[in-house]
C-alpha cells in the first residue's frame, strides 16, 4: 500500500515537473517559423495536454491512497464521504483542491485553440502555460513537511523555490533532448541555429537552477535533518543521501555537456556540429532519466517523517568526537597534525580548480593529501558508538524520573557500581574489569544513548549483564537520568552561594508541584520569565531564614524572582505548620515535595538549602546552611541582580539528558 502510494506520488511529481519543464523550454526556444521547430513545439504542446491529464489522474490516485491511509482502511479510498472529509478538513486536502483546480484551468486553457501568429499572443499563451504549471507545482510545498514547521511561511517558500527550480531544470531536459534530436537529423537543418541557441540558454538556466536547488535544499535539510546522526541513521536522512548520490553522476554529466558538447555545437555542421548535437541529445537524455529517478527519492521523502522527528539508528561502530582527545596528548597531537595535512589538501584542491596548467597532477596530489590527512587525523577522533548512541531519551530529566531511577539503581546497579556510583559494590570485585566509576567526569561525556545501549545489551567483556529484558524502556531511562543527576551532583559539590558570572552548566531537573488544591505547576513554566529561588527548608531550624525571605519577598519579586519553598519532610500540612506569622506568601509546596527533596538533596544535603535557578533553567548558586537568617539580607538581592545584569549565556537546556 505504502509502496503504491510512493509510486503514485512519484508519477504525479514527475508529471508535474515535466509539465513545468516543457512549458519553460518552449519559452526558452522562443517563437520560430521554421517547420522543424514548429513541429517540435506542436509536439510539446500535445505533451503538455497529455501531462495535465495524467498529472490530474495520478493526483486523484494519490488522494485516494492518502485517504485510505488516513482512514486506516483500504475501502475508504472509494468512499465519497471519506474523500470529502480529507479534501475539506485537512490542509493537504485544501492544497490538493487548489493544485488540481489550477491543473483543470491549465487543461482548459490548452484545449482552446488560440491564434498565436503575433509575437505578443505567442508569449502570452506560452507564458500562461508555464505560469499555471509552475503555480500548480509550487503550491504543493504548502502541504509538505515545511508547513509543519514553526515560521512555516519561509520554509514553504524555500520548498516551493526548490520544486520550481527542479521543475525548470529536470523537466526541461527531455524536451531539450527531443529538440536536439530533431535538429540533428538530416532534414532538421532549419532548426539547428535555434537548437544551439536553446541549448545554450538552457545551460545557463540549468546552472542557475542547480545553484538554487543546492541552496534551498541545504536550507531545508538544516531544519528537517539537522544532524549527522539524522542523516545516516534515519530513513529520511538515508533517502536524502540516496538523492545526493544519484545527483553526483547527473552533475558530472551536466558538467561534461557544458564543457565538452556545448562548445562543439558551433563547429562545422556536417562533421562537427551535427554529431556533437546527436551526442549532446544522448547525454541530456541520460541526464533526464537519472533526474527523474531522483524525483522518486523526493517523493518518498515527502512521505517519510523528517529525520529531526525520528529516532536515529547509528549505523557505525564508532563516531568522531573531540572528547577522546582530552587527557591524551599523543592522540591530540596526531589529530592536529592530520588536520594540517587536510587543510593543505583543501588548499591544493582549490588551487587545482583555479589554475589552468598542471591541474590534473595538482588535483591528484590534493586527493592523496586529503586521504593521508584523513588517515592520520580521524582514528584518534574515533570513539565507540552504538546503534542507540544518538537516540533521545523518552523520559524528560525530571525529579520524579530521577527518584524512580534511584530505586532501579539500588535494585540492579548498586551491587557492582556501589551505592554512590564509585564502582565499589561488593559484587564488582569479582568482575573481569572493575565497574565504571559513574561519578567520574567521563560519564557525562558519553551520550545518554551510549548508556542506554550498555544497560540494554550489557558489556560482555567487562562482565556487565544486559538489563534489556528485566527493565522496561522507561525504567532504563529513569536509571540514566539518575546516573546523570549523580554525576552532576558530584560536579556541583564546589558550587557555592555566589553566582559565578558567565558559567551556566548545572541543569535544574524539572519538577511538578502544587500548593494546596490549586492546579499543578512545573519549574519549566518559569523558563524565560522568572528566576527561581528553590528553598528546601526544615522546621524548626529554617524558621528564621523563612521569616527573612517572607520579609524580602516583595523586593525579590520586584527583581523577577519567585521563591518556591519545599519542606524537607514533605508534609502535606506544611502551610499550617508554618503558621500565621510571619505571613509567607510565596508558594510552599504541599504536593510533589518528596520527589523535589530527594532529587535536589543529591546536590546539597544540608538541613536548609537554597538553589538559585536562572531564567534559562540552570542552577547558578547553592547555599547550604541550617536555616539561620542571613546576616547580610541584601546578599541574595546582589546575586539576583548579577543574574539580571548578565546576557543570556547558554541556550536553555533541552528537556532530556544527552
Amino acid at each position, binding site marked *: 500500500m505504502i509502496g503504491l502510494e510512493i509510486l503514485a506520488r512519484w508519477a504525479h511529481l514527475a508529471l508535474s515537473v515535466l509539465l513545468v519543464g516543457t512549458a519553460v523550454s518552449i519559452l526558452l526556444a522562443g517563437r520560430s517559423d521554421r517547420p522543424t521547430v514548429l513541429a517540435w513545439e506542436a509536439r510539446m504542446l500535445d505533451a503538455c495536454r497529455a501531462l495535465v491529464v495524467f498529472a490530474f489522474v495520478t493526483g486523484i490516485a494519490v488522494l485516494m491512497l492518502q485517504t485510505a491511509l488516513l482512514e486506516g482502511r483500504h475501502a475508504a479510498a472509494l468512499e465519497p464521504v471519506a474523500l470529502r472529509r480529507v479534501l475539506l478538513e485537512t490542509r493537504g486536502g485544501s492544497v490538493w483542491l487548489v493544485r488540481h483546480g489550477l491543473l483543470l484551468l491549465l487543461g482548459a486553457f490548452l484545449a482552446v485553440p488560440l491564434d498565436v501568429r503575433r509575437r505578443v499572443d505567442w508569449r502570452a*499563451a506560452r507564458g*500562461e502555460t508555464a505560469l499555471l504549471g509552475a503555480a500548480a507545482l509550487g503550491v504543493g510545498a504548502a502541504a509538505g513537511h515545511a508547513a509543519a514547521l514553526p515560521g512555516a511561511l519561509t520554509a514553504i517558500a524555500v520548498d516551493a523555490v526548490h520544486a520550481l527550480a527542479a521543475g525548470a531544470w529536470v523537466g526541461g531536459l527531455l524536451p531539450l533532448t527531443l529538440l536536439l534530436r530533431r535538429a540533428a537529423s538530416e532534414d532538421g537543418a532549419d532548426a539547428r541555429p535555434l537548437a544551439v541557441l536553446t541549448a545554450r540558454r538552457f545551460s545557463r538556466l540549468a546552472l542557475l537552477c542547480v545553484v538554487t536547488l543546492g541552496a534551498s535544499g541545504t536550507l531545508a535539510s538544516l531544519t528537517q535533518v539537522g544532524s549527522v546522526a539524522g542523516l545516516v541513521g534515519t530513513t529520511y536522512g538515508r533517502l536524502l543521501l540516496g538523492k545526493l548520490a544519484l545527483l553526483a553522476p547527473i552533475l558530472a554529466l551536466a558538467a561534461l555537456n557544458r564543457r565538452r558538447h556545448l562548445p562543439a555545437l558551433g563547429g562545422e555542421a556536417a562533421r562537427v556540429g551535427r554529431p556533437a548535437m546527436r551526442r549532446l541529445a544522448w547525454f541530456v537524455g541520460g541526464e533526464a532519466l537519472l533526474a527523474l529517478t531522483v524525483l522518486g527519492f523526493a517523493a518518498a521523502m515527502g512521505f517519510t517523517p523528517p529525520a529531526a522527528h525520528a529516532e536515529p539508528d547509528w549505523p557505525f561502530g564508532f563516531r568522531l568526537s573531540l572528547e577522546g582527545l582530552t587527557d591524551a596528548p599523543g592522540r591530540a597531537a596526531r589529530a592536529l597534525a592530520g588536520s594540517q595535512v587536510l587543510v593543505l589538501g583543501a588548499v591544493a584542491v582549490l588551487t587545482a580548480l583555479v589554475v589552468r596548467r598542471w591541474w590534473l597532477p595538482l588535483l591528484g596530489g590534493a586527493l592523496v593529501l586529503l586521504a593521508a590527512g584523513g588517515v592520520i587525523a580521524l582514528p584518534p577522533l574515533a570513539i565507540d558508538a552504538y546503534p542507540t548512541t544518538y537516540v533521545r531519551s523518552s523520559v524528560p530529566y525530571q525529579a520524579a524520573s530521577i527518584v524512580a531511577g534511584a530505586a532501579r539503581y539500588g535494585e540492579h546497579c548498586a551491587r557492582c557500581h556501589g551505592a554512590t556510583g564509585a564502582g565499589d559494590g561488593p559484587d564488582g570485585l569479582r568482575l573481569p574489569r572493575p565497574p565504571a566509576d559513574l561519578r567520574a567526569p567521563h560519564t557525562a561525556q558519553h551520550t545518554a544513548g551510549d548508556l542506554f545501549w550498555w544497560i540494554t545489551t550489557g558489556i560482555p567483556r567487562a562482565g556487565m549483564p544486559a538489563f534489556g529484558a528485566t527493565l522496561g524502556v522507561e525504567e532504563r531511562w529513569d536509571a540514566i537520568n539518575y546516573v546523570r543527576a549523580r554525576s552532576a551532583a558530584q560536579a556541583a559539590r564546589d558550587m557555592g552561594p555566589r553566582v559565578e558570572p558567565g558559567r551556566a552548566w548545572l541543569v535544574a531537573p524539572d519538577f511538578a508541584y502544587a500548593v*494546596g*488544591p*490549586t492546579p499543578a505547576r512545573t519549574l519549566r513554566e518559569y523558563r524565560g520569565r522568572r528566576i527561581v529561588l528553590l528553598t528546601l527548608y526544615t522546621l524548626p531550624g529554617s524558621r528564621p531564614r523563612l521569616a527573612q525571605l517572607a520579609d524580602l519577598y516583595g523586593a525579590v519579586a520586584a527583581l523577577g524572582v519567585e521563591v518556591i519553598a519545599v519542606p524537607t519532610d514533605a508534609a502535606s500540612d506544611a*502551610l499550617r505548620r508554618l503558621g500565621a506569622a510571619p505571613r509567607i506568601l510565596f508558594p510552599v509546596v504541599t504536593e510533589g515535595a518528596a520527589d523535589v527533596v530527594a532529587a535536589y538533596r543529591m546536590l546539597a544535603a544540608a538541613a536548609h538549602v537554597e538553589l538559585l535557578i536562572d531564567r534559562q533553567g540552570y542552577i547558578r548558586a547553592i547555599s547550604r546552611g541550617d536555616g539561620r537568617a542571613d546576616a547580610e539580607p541584601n546578599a541574595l538581592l546582589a546575586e539576583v541582580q548579577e543574574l539580571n545584569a548578565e546576557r543570556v549565556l547558554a541556550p536553555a537546556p533541552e528537556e532530556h539528558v544527552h
Partner: protein
Amino acid sequence: MRAWKAAALLNLALVLGVGWGYLFWGLRTARLEQELAGARTTAVAGVERVWQISGVVRAVVPEINVLVITHEDIPGYMPAMTMGFRASSPKIHEAVAVGDAVRFTLQGVPPNVTITAIEKTR
C-alpha cells in the same frame, strides 16, 4: 479572441478568485480568531458574576477584613495566583486559619469582588 487577451482574462480571474477567497475565508477566519482570543482574555465588564473557587489560605489580615488565598484559575477573570480578597463579613475570616484548603464563593462586579461564603475542604 486574441491569445494575450485570453491569458490576461485568465490571470485576472485567478487574482480575483484568490482575492475573493482571502476576503471571504481569510478575513472571516482572522476575525473569528481575534474574537475568540478577545473573549478568552477580557473579563465581562459591568456584570455581576459568581464563582466557586478552590484554594488554600495563606494569610489572614483581620484589620482590613482580607484573606490572602493561593487559588486556582478564575475563569474569565484571573489566572491561578496568590491574591488578597475582601470578605463580606468578619465571620468568614474567623472560620478559617492559615494553611486551610478551602472552597469559596467569589461574588461581585470585577474588580470589586468579595468572598461571600467559605468552607474548609480538608
